[in-house]
């Protein structure tokens, strides 16, 4: 146990998250100087303008130094922290032994690992049960203060310390500890002031930039969803049996992709003075999160059938909500669909997702009395209707093209055919 050890430092740097990301912000450090960290264990959370993610440790060792503080934004490749791979779990941190650090007395725990005193192994649980041991009375000597088998055996060996108290609860209730002061968080009276989360700040910046950049125009179409509703009812169970949730959004996405292939000017982006037509339809799907919004991309959506698109939407939205997206999932979109209609709204004027040239908004499907023309002339019928709203960049295309596109989407939905 007395082996001499050398300090071998491994660097933790801001990773390259896809080609277009140049910088990232430290959201929170999960590990602190002196902490033991396993290879691939998360050392900190970062936020980039594409995605929020975690940085895994490149090696097992002890975190020596943190060089970038929380809420600081640094460029890709910047040194964030160093890890000493020559350290051993349970040994003192080099800085401590050099006398630099603030730890004036030996740590109560064998090392600076996260608290693991609550981790109870099967054998400790069994022995404690057999001997009626209250594990909260046992001092753990394992990593992070975990109670080892030998700890509970030693506790039993030492015998009953005192008569068990009749009441284990004290009538005294300590005052709740004041909440630790959050940086920049203030409360005065009925007002509460919170800093914007990194995601909110990015959304704010992105939306304003789009408003400043594009010449937004929004056009609307009413769509009779009768055939889609009927077809969905027919397919829904069958798809569900294969684990594919079939939503109206999937139908609209399929119709949109088909219409985009006929009118590539809407599957494009403006780059300086050029209009760039994209060969693939990489379809962005806006997903609302608890604290914001993210747009994962379904790549090459033109190759996907209705079921394929439905499955892809289910996949990306599940992963978005569980924060499982990777940087590649939110890059390269060529057109975006947003779907706030699930909350019952019927009209919106969405902001274009730059550098794309248009965004389609799907509102709520609602039953309305509409005039239909049949073989016996006009009549009034109850039909499931939906408004689809298209915001487009008037720099890239004009109203006629936008209207033709929206009309094509409408026609495909009203005359739904699976292979459309």
């Amino acid at each position, binding site marked *: 146990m007395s082996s001499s050890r050398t300090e071998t430092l491994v660097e933790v740097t801001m990773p390259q998250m896809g080609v277009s990301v140049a910088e990232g912000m430290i959201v929170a450090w999960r590990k602190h100087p002196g902490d033991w960290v396993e290879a691939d264990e998360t050392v900190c959370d970062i936020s980039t303008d594409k995605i929020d993610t975690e940085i895994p440790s490149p090696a097992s060792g002890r975190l020596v130094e943190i060089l970038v503080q929380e809420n600081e934004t640094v460029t890709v490749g910047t040194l964030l922290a160093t890890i000493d791979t020559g350290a051993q779990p349970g040994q003192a941190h080099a800085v401590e032994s050099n006398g630099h650090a603030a730890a004036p007395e030996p740590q109560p725990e064998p090392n600076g690992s996260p608290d693991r005193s609550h981790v109870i192994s099967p054998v400790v*649980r069994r022995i404690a049960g057999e001997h009626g041991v209250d594990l909260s009375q046992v001092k753990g000597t394992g990593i992070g203060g975990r109670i*080892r088998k030998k700890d509970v055996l030693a506790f039993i060996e030492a015998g009953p310390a005192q008569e068990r108290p009749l009441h284990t609860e004290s009538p005294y209730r300590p005052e709740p500890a004041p909440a630790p002061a959050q940086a920049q968080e203030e409360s005065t009276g009925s007002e509460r002031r919170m800093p914007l989360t990194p995601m909110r700040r990015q959304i704010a910046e992105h939306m304003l930039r789009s408003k400043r950049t594009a010449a937004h125009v929004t056009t609307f179409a009413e769509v009779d969803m009768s055939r889609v509703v009927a077809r969905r009812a027919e397919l829904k169970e069958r798809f569900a049996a294969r684990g594919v949730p079939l939503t109206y959004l999937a139908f609209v996405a399929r119709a949109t992709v088909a219409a985009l292939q006929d009118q590539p000017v809407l599957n494009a982006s403006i780059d300086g003075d050029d209009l760039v037509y994209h060969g693939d339809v990489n379809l962005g799907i806006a997903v609302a999160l608890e604290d914001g919004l993210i747009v994962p991309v379904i790549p090459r959506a033109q190759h996907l059938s209705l079921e394929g698109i439905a499955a892809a939407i289910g996949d990306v939205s599940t992963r978005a909500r569980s924060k499982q997206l990777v940087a590649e999932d939110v890059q390269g979109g060529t057109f975006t669909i947003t779907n706030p209609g699930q909350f019952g709204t019927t009209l919106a004027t969405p902001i274009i997702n730059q550098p794309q040239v248009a965004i389609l908004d799907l509102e709520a499907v609602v039953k309305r009395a509409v005039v239909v023309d049949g073989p016996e002339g006009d009549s009034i019928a109850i039909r499931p209707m939906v408004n689809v709203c298209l915001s487009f960049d008037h720099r890239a295309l004009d109203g006629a093209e936008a209207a033709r596109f929206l009309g094509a989407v409408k026609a495909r939905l009203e005359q739904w055919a699976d292979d459309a």
Partner: protein
Amino acid sequence: MSEMTYLEAISDGLREEMRRDDSVFCLGEDIGVFGGAFKVTAGFHEEFGAERVLDMPLAENIIIGAAVGAAVEGMRPVCEMQFADFIACGFDQLVNVAAKLHYRQGVAVPMVVRLPTGGGFSGGPFHSQNPEAWFLQAPGLKVVAPATAEDAKGLLVSAIRDPNPVMFLEHKHLYRRIRGDVPEGEHTVPIGEARVVRAGGELSVFAYGSTVAMAQQAAEELDEDIEVVDLRTLCPLDRDTILASARKTGKVLIAHEATRSCGVGAEVAALIGEEAFEDLDAPVRRLTAPDVPIPFSPPLEQHVLPGLDDMKEAARELLAY
């Protein structure tokens, strides 16, 4: 007793059995006048003649197939694979014929296949493998893997006398590096019994073949209360000894040179998880080669093969857990 190398002990056991029993003979590539690639059968041609020390063509399916036929007819053949890796060429005869004859027709197949295994000498991907897990998936085969000179002789003799096909894994790295006192004359070690090499109370290290001596050295250098168990037989596993040790210490490290997935380590870990869950004080850990072929490059090979430092680190972490 006389001191022998691991390799000499194998020769000694084979020679003793050939002297004792006329039905025992060996067959393999270059094992006659040349004495075998590693010289296990050096001198055998002179003592027993060409009819009991058969030089075979470079065709492992014929070696295994001929041995199956001879065994069914009442002989006790001992096949030598020049390298364990080459058993792949005789696999159909081994796993579909030798392993299943007793199940299908009640016919005993008393044969032994000697398999020089393991890496550490820059032999590359075709001359360094540890293929024991292949055999563990073929019910009907027994598999032994001695780590000491004494066990090498004793297990080989037991394997020859066993009525089943027995795979005898002899680690090339041990051939001339491991030596020890070996009983002269008749000596057997029962198949299916592990051996507690070093008793301890805080951590069980299960090893076999090349990792046994490594585990002993690690335990001594760490100077901790570590139990080292040499499995010796991989099929049938000595469940009682494994479970008794795991229940005693509550912490388990399984070490082998073979690759990781679905290996002996996985099987032992599953056994302990099923039978000794309530005695565990830490996650069961494996120390193995990763799931890759063995590289030619010496530094890469050293990186791939589990070593003493890896063993000590894993043991330290488990002890501290």
